């Protein structure tokens, strides 16, 4: 199964939860949302081989930062 995150592709074997897969590629589960086959899911979802998985970073765009 392929996981897409920030224009990078990661190859992970299916049968594990999204949360474990996220940790496996070195990303903090709190910092991303998981979209599987076009649907937003919770990170306990078990991923299968063949799933199309995208991680969406949740960090703000930054244009609104108004701190000095």
């Amino acid at each position, binding site marked *: 199964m392929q996981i897409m995150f920030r224009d990078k592709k990661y190859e992970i074997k299916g049968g594990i939860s999204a949360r474990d897969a996220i940790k496996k590629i070195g990303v903090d589960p*709190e*910092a991303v949302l998981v979209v599987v086959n076009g649907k*937003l899911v*919770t990170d306990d979802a078990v991923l299968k081989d063949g799933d199309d998985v995208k991680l969406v970073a949740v960090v703000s*765009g930054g244009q*609104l930062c108004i701190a*000095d």
Partner: protein
Amino acid sequence: MGFMRCRKCGGAAVINMRQHKLSLCGEHYSEWFVAQTDRAIEKYKMFTRDERVLVAVSGGKDSLSLWDTLLRLGYQADGLYIGLGINDPAPYSDASLEKTRAFVESGEWRVASGEDPASPITRYTPLLHVVDIEETYGKSIPQIARDKTRGHGKPCAACGLTKRYVMNRLAHDKGYAVLATGHNLDDEVAVLMQNTLRWQTGYLARQAPVLPASREGLTRKVKPFCRFYERETATYALVRGIDYIYDECPHAVGNLTNFYKTLLNQLETQSPGAKLSFYLEFLRARGEGAFEPFNQVETLHECEVCGQPTTAPGRCAFCRMWDVEKLDRATV
């Protein structure tokens, strides 16, 4: 694929909020999110339905979600987009404006299908104000930052000063009662952590969901999303189909705020609810007056060029940085 169930309907959940022990499907999450926003507005006495609200929009998930939510709640909310001219190496500002315009034109802010048409949801048609910094002041943010001491290395200081000024000025001049920004809980706790680690008591005293208009010329500032985690505002944007700009500002990448956000997320992973309780307990202590001795009221003066309130006599920091008196008055 296994999945967690929505607590309300038993359908597939799109979010599990560990700090609330609550998982919801897209439809019920959207309802919950809108209701929670309204509760925050009422709890912190941010504004009423009779007041006109100006939302600072950047094309990102937080600000577009905020605008969408306020319109769904029936508030008279217009938007302000500030064109910063950050288009190198990639056209970040141009793309942000495109997303913002697309949001207004798409009518995504209208009532979603499936909602009760008899509900008191408004059909208020929002205005989008666009202020292009280069067109108005002659230079883009990266250009002014290169030319001035303020912003050496990174343009963030020049950018923050300019945005605060333009937001306040436009809100005041156009008669808006309040300026709303999309700051979320992660933004707030990152700043709180920075200020706590340095014991910046003055800043701690002033950090709040509502910053009142302390004198003529200043507009009340509010943060209706201050109790939502960043992942919650992102989830709302995805559920609502809001097309927002995913990229971070190129100058924000690797900044201190993002570093603290990363640390706080590691804490949250180990201890769900840590970020929320850090913030709410801070607000409780602040409400009990813990920081009141440090909340010194500054004497404000009138800027001799633009008339806006400023902490020092003479020209305000904005007019000094932009040499406003040398600009064509017709455009400023």
